[in-house]
């Protein structure tokens, strides 16, 4: 995205939490901002990259992005790094020692937890990193607070020379609310000052820094006790008080407007005395936190009597009806009915691959190959686990397909001895964390066939650029990775590396069939772009000739959402077996002419919509 003139100060704008953080980063005079895309955090860096006066980059993974931000902060400049919750797992190696070095220029690390699992493989609570790494944690409750706390985070970071964690959740990142924005303040970095005892962390250096870290933590706790971000609202109904933070605060206020509330904005180190103060105000206290009983456990250890996850759900968002039901139960009152009418039963509508997605050809092919186990990875292609392909057997974390595939190979039981092991991974995921796994497969001589689906984008998060497509965050030209050379450099034999067009099903099928038979590492690279990116070019749409469609249903197995079944029939085959017939139509307005469905169509009933004549070109193989 190109730089645009920022909106003037004092404007009141409808902003998502992500947009509000981005604005604050620019206003705080940040010089370097880095991230790897990940829902719900992606838009922060996307928006930051549109502001002038700073450097923004898509890093290859979260650990590198944090290290880039750390370097800039060591150099005395203000820096920013953001990631989704699981990204912090990747970055944590740097984080756990960063807490010993501290920073010179301000560093804010925004971590977005996907509470409610809108688009993630787990639901973890990033507030733990504050405790684990002894770092301050700020928790905004809406967009305005996300904006303000980001700016406050830089002041706190520089005052205590400590990186600050800004803990967001999906319900902050993706909620739009009104924000009043301010002026940008230039921040002039002090420059890098050589200080090996601090910046070069050796065992003896770490031993000297550890006591300082705990001194800092004590000072931060004292700060949290008096911070204006931690406020007691006395309320009028003192029977029950709440200690809460983040978006859960809004839910508590909505459900119990009269109750005393301690709202924690500066939640780590926990302001224990402030919590005692709230407890003294009311008959009973409930800690409302998303999602782990973190503060609850700490306060109980301090001898404060309270309720928490014994009455509240351990998973998901604590929305007002959830809170009302739990408190009614606690008080022995009848639990209010959530709705007047029960939800209607409607079919599920899981996310699907896009019309003409190049992955369709890969998964259609994989669904036709027998006796294989497929280790999957994180990206759009995780959807291959769903219908109609059912062609993905594992998925745990970014890049894991490589190591898991090798483990499936080395750990195969007697029943798997003839199984072929495949791994499926996307271009960006491969560069993020897959390369090391492939090197491990090669080095340890595993028998794995890797499908590297290069669609030249970080597809699932909206098609961001990455080193695989040769464009930087602004869309400017950047050095492009050559995947063939890269995997060969990692040690895969040149004759075991194939680049194929995933729309040419016979070629793809042949490549997979041949490589799984070879007992050594091989890589099949597909090379067609994500259909949601500018690199994709639409072709002429197809239609189905009704009089020629025999209902074989082969095209339905491709899984393209532009193909719809118009009627179903039963038929008896000459051998007496009953078969289901599915007659189809193609939504021509949605079809972009990839031709995948044309290839398995038995009666040649799929033709270009404008010509309405059979097309056999694609079937030449």
């Amino acid at each position: 995205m190109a730089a645009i003139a920022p909106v003037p100060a004092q404007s009141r704008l409808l902003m998502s939490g992500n947009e509000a953080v981005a604005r604050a980063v620019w206003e705080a005079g940040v010089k370097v901002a880095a991230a790897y895309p990940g829902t719900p955090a992606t838009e922060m860096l996307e928006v930051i990259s549109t502001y002038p006066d700073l450097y923004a980059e898509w890093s290859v993974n979260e650990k590198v992005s944090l290290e880039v931000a750390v370097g800039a902060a060591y150099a005395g400049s203000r820096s920013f790094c953001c990631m989704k919750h699981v990204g912090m797992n990747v970055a944590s190696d740097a984080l756990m020692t960063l807490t010993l070095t501290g920073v010179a220029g301000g560093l804010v690390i925004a971590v977005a937890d996907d509470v409610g699992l809108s688009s993630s493989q787990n639901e973890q609570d990033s507030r733990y990193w504050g405790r684990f790494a002894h770092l301050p944690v700020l928790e905004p409750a809406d967009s305005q607070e996300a904006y303000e706390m980001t700016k406050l985070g830089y002041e706190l970071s520089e005052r205590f020379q400590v990186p600050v964690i800004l803990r967001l959740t999906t319900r902050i990142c993706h909620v739009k609310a009104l924000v009043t924005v301010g002026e940008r303040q230039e921040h002039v970095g002090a420059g890098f000052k050589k200080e090996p005892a601090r910046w070069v962390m050796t065992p003896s250096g770490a031993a000297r820094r550890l006591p300082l870290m705990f001194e800092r933590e004590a000072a931060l706790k004292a700060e949290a006790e008096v911070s204006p971000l931690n406020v007691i609202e006395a309320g009028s109904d003192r029977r029950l008080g709440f200690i809460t933070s983040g978006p859960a605060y809004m839910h508590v206020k909505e459900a119990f407007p009269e109750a005393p509330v301690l709202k924690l904005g500066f939640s780590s180190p926990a302001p224990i005395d402030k919590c005692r103060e709230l407890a003294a105000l009311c008959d009973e206290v409930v800690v409302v936190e998303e999602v782990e009983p973190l503060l609850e456990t700490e306060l109980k250890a301090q001898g404060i009597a309270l309720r928490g996850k014994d009455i509240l759900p351990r998973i998901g968002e604590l929305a007002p009806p959830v809170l009302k039901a739990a408190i009614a139960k606690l008080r022995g009152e009848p639990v209010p009915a959530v709705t007047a009418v029960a939800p209607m039963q409607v079919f599920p509508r899981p996310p699907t691959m896009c019309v003409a997605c190049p992955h369709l050809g890969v998964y259609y092919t994989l669904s036709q190959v027998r006796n294989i186990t497929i280790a999957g990875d994180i990206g759009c292609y995780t959807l291959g686990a769903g219908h109609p392909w059912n062609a993905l057997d594992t998925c745990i974390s970014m890049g894991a397909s490589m190591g898991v595939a090798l483990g499936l190979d080395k750990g195969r039981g007697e029943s798997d001895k003839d199984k072929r092991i495949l791994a499926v991974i996307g271009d960006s995921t491969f560069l993020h964390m897959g390369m090391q796994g492939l090197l491990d497969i090669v080095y340890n001589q595993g028998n794995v066939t890797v499908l590297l689906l290069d669609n030249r984008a970080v597809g699932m998060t909206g098609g961001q650029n990455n080193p695989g497509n040769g464009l930087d965050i602004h869309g400017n030209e950047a050095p492009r990775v050559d995947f063939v050379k890269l995997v060969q450099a990692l040690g895969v034999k040149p004759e075991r590396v194939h680049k194929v067009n995933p729309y040419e099903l016979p070629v793809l099928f042949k490549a997979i069939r041949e490589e799984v038979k070879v007992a050594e590492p091989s890589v099949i690279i597909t090379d067609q772009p994500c259909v949601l990116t500018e690199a994709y070019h639409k072709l002429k749409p197809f239609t189905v000739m009704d009089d020629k469609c025999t209902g074989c249903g082969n095209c339905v197995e491709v899984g393209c959402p532009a193909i719809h079944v118009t009627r179903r029939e039963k038929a008896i085959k000459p051998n007496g077996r009953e078969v289901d017939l599915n007659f189809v139509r193609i939504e021509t307005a949605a079809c972009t002419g990839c031709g995948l469905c044309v290839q398995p169509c038995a009666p040649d009933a799929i033709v270009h919509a404008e010509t309405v004549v059979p097309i056999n070109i694609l079937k030449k193989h």
Partner: protein
Amino acid sequence: MSIATTNILVVGIGGQGVMTATEILAEAAIALGHDVKKTEVAGMAQRGGVVSSHLRFGPKVLSPQITPGTAHVLLGFEAAEAMRWRHMLVPDGIALMNTAQLTPPVVDLGLYDYPADPVGSMKDSGCRVVAFDAMAIAKDLGDIRLGNTVMLGAVADHLPFSADILLNCILQRFARKGEKVVEQNRKAFAAGRAAVAATAEVALA
């Protein structure tokens, strides 16, 4: 409506423009000086999944989420999606629904059935229902992409502010695309309003 907070739920599937429509409704509420919060489950939504966009506005909005049973208006961009979120309505709430049916692959594969009579099911559930074919209306106007504006026209007379405010917000969005696009959208908005008014009259008769 003399209530503190107005709750509008806009639902459909990824790619239909649900989030953009809600954003325009939010802009109209802001123009009137309301506090506004808008939220939805996005992320994987662009992959043809379920999208529900919550809009709340009033003097001061706390939680961004609409509690089930408290939505004043349900604007359904797709027939089965309107059904999916029916329980979010207040007892006297109104559902404005597109009758167009978009079947997902799981239905085409025969794993699930599409509801036989979405409009009838909605009516039987006891809420007020106004149903119209927004896609057909948009096609008649010459561009399927106008469906979004038809939907906004449909909701225009069921908001606690005048339809003109909403229309202005829509036209402002398209202003930079030229007079022709602005005129098309003006027509689409009017057609959406007319479709709802006509259906309501039939119901009264």
